[in-house]
């Protein structure tokens, strides 16, 4: 089962608290997840902590599922960081700012596990 979602990224307190500890597991825990409301999670048949694959025009990334009742239907949130940036839009629309909010995405449950920060970055060097 896949759902279509509108993907945004943004700050969280936990992400901010790990701004200068990005090699730590705490940062991984604070950023490598995707929030959907429980209805959307239910549609996917996913529970918190399951792996989700998020795919956009720009790439794909595996992150953990997390519930957030504040999200309206179809709105997905990944904290700002390398996991979100694996799938966000590099297009600046001629004004300098890439597309960090409002990227159409497909989300599905996967057996893959999210990559830790170093493994994620290593993929860029191998490309």
């Amino acid at each position, binding site marked *: 089962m896949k759902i279509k979602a509108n993907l*945004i990224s943004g700050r969280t*307190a936990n992400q901010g608290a790990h701004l200068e500890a990005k090699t730590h597991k705490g940062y991984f825990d604070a950023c490598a997840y995707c929030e959907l409301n429980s209805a959307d999670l239910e549609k996917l048949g996913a529970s918190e902590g399951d792996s989700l694959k998020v795919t956009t025009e720009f790439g794909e990334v595996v992150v953990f599922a997390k519930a957030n009742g504040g999200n309206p239907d179809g709105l997905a949130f990944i904290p700002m960081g390398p996991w979100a940036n694996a799938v966000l839009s590099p297009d600046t629309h001629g004004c*300098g*700012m890439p597309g960090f909010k409002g990227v159409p995405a497909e989300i599905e449950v996967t057996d893959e596990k999210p990559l830790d920060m170093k493994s994620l970055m290593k993929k860029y060097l191998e490309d």
Partner: protein
Amino acid sequence: MPVIKDAVCSLCGSLCDDITVTVEDNKITKIENACILGHSKFVGMFEHDRIETPMIRKDGELVPVSYEEAIEAAAKILVNSKRTLSYGWCSTSCEAISGAIKLAEETGSLIDSTANVCHGPSALAAQEKGSPSASLGVIKNRADVIVFWGCNPVHAHPRHMSRYSSFSKGLFTEKGRKARTMTVIDVRKTDTAKLADKYVEIEQGSDLLLVTALRSIVNGHEDVVPETIAGVPKAEIIELAETLKNGKFVCIFFGMGVTQSRSKYKNGDAMASLISDLNQHTKAVMIGMRGHYNVTGFGQVATWETGFPMAIDFAKGYPYYNPGETGANDLLVREEPDAAIIAAADAGAHFPQKAVRHLARIPVIQIDPYANPTTELADVVIPSAIVGIEAEGTAYRMDAISLHMKKLIDSKFKTDEEIVKDLTVKVRELKRGA
């Protein structure tokens, strides 16, 4: 044991200057008044991964070298580069930023700040319509109507509401939170929204529609507004417009929900017009919620030294500015730079994949106290002292008020200011040799 009062917290753009720090044996053992982010920064430096030594990548691995070797390697990269991107310079002092601009000028580089991925569009908006603003204490003392639009201070600026906005008390706002109407406009019910008197949920990417509808109502053209716009019923928008018009002093704080969503700088542009229109009825201002503690400082220093706040290209010898062409991400996506120097910011973590992919292909110099995703891509890594803790310097709060950050403890690391100076000297030396 020394207790340092009124220390400035170098984490977010709130730049709280009331931190009490206890130092024992050159270690910070107690922090008072800081929030979770600030606390994590002050104490975290002993727990987090510092870059312990300068490093150069050899055969794919970063290996320890001396500062001299790292500076020389970095200078060689700069001298051999025809198109250098210098990026970041926001979690550092104005003095270091000034040095970085001088280095960019001398090497004909393009220099940009983290505004490229946060409030860059706000600068463009100000260039279209101006920036009707105020210092944060004006909000504390006067504002009875406060709006947080596309920002979430509970998470991003935890002490903002108690020091400057919703909960603060001032001369004309003695009753604090009770004396104020707090509205949150966002695409999802954030923790900040939970504290609001009124939460307006809008469809993601439709901020411009809502601002425009508000302007129409404020200017007496309610009739042109459809029954629902931006996902919000007309009645709710009229109510919001009334709240704004009837306030004695209105402040709209806006964040990346406004700058990063569809219409980007046009959102801030329209918001400035709304503020101007509101001043026909009351007093109103807007303030951007800046993230990095000194991203505002980069904009200030760059503006007085080059005429432009960001995205400054020195290829022609004089500053050239055209964001959208000279922004850091534009440059990387065009695969234009053949080298990059990234300091006091983390492009590896915060740029989209296509830009990061190009960084992975070119020589990258990193200057930072901490290992982070950029380190994984860097070829020369130069560790630095933490400004505001191990080094003094100037920073600008989100409202463009500058403060002097103290040095609290000694460090074995060079400061950003020293590193950039050494690098400039080395570059000159190599150029003369050539």
